[in-house]
């Protein structure tokens, strides 16, 4: 089948090299448009003033951190089921960017929370689960870093990611439930301000930009990983020579 052709490391290496600039430029362009919308098109919010503009990065970052984890789990499941080496490399290439977005979601959440609720941090269900998601990312990357054997690292990381993927919804539920018990209704963060269409558009543009950025970065990273794994093959040595000359 055609898919197997693309899953061959040599083919994918070349394709990834060709695609990367498109995704990178797309990400840059959309970030520009998204920033323009966030600062010059979107009107001032009548409740939150200008501070609400943080959502244009906060919400996409939070989305991305969760979505990247799901994509990693997907690749790991594929890798374990069909024994495709490339899938594990995809998971490895995505994790650092996922952790970055997770951190940014927490950081911007804190900076948004301070003016809105008067506290840098509240033990709200979403913030708390986001923090635990960051812990999961850190754990996975620490496990990869500790295992020298690539094959063992791939599989061990995949198992951990899948266990985490089953656990994340349970963690979210438990934290949410714990939250309602301990704080009652003193702080209600779920009440979103009515969202103007232009805000939604801005958020979506930023989210797509984050997507393209993630793909571009992951492709570059996965190329490096492929080269490292395939360094004994002829095509990889030629590719290295070509890179050195460039």
């Amino acid at each position: 089948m055609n898919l197997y052709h693309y899953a061959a490391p040599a083919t994918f290496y070349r394709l990834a090299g060709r695609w990367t600039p498109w995704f990178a430029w797309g990400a840059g362009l959309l970030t520009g448009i998204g920033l323009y919308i966030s600062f010059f098109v979107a009107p001032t919010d009548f409740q939150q003033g200008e501070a609400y503009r943080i959502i244009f990065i906060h919400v996409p970052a939070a989305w991305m951190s969760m979505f990247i984890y799901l994509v990693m789990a997907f690749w790991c499941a594929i890798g374990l089921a069909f024994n495709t080496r490339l899938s594990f490399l995809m998971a490895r290439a995505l994790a650092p960017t996922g952790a970055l977005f997770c951190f940014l979601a927490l950081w911007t959440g804190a900076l948004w929370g301070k003016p809105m609720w008067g506290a840098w941090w509240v033990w709200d269900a979403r913030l708390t689960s986001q923090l635990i998601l960051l812990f999961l990312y850190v754990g996975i990357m620490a496990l990869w870093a500790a295992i020298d054997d690539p094959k063992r690292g791939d599989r061990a990381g995949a198992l951990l990611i899948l266990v985490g993927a089953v656990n994340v919804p349970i963690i979210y539920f438990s934290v949410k439930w714990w939250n309602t018990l301990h704080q009652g209704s003193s702080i209600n963060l779920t009440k979103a301000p009515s969202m103007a269409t232009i805000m939604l558009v801005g958020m979506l543009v930023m989210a797509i930009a984050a997507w393209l950025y993630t793909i571009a970065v992951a492709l570059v990273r996965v190329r490096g990983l492929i080269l490292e794994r395939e360094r004994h093959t002829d095509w990889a040595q030629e590719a290295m020579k070509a890179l050195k000359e460039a």
Partner: protein
Amino acid sequence: MVWQSGTEFWSMGGYGLYVWGSFGVTGLGVALEVWLLRRGQRSLLNRLQRMQRWEAQ
């Protein structure tokens, strides 16, 4: 246009610290990742070539 002047834009209705703190750190984070990635690629290439030479001996 939402903003009347540059200073108004930078002050963000008094929320400048929070808004620019968020956007600034996001920009820094992304820039840092791209920089690390580039540096990583270069050092990977050097390392692989060194290994190659070593294995050839």
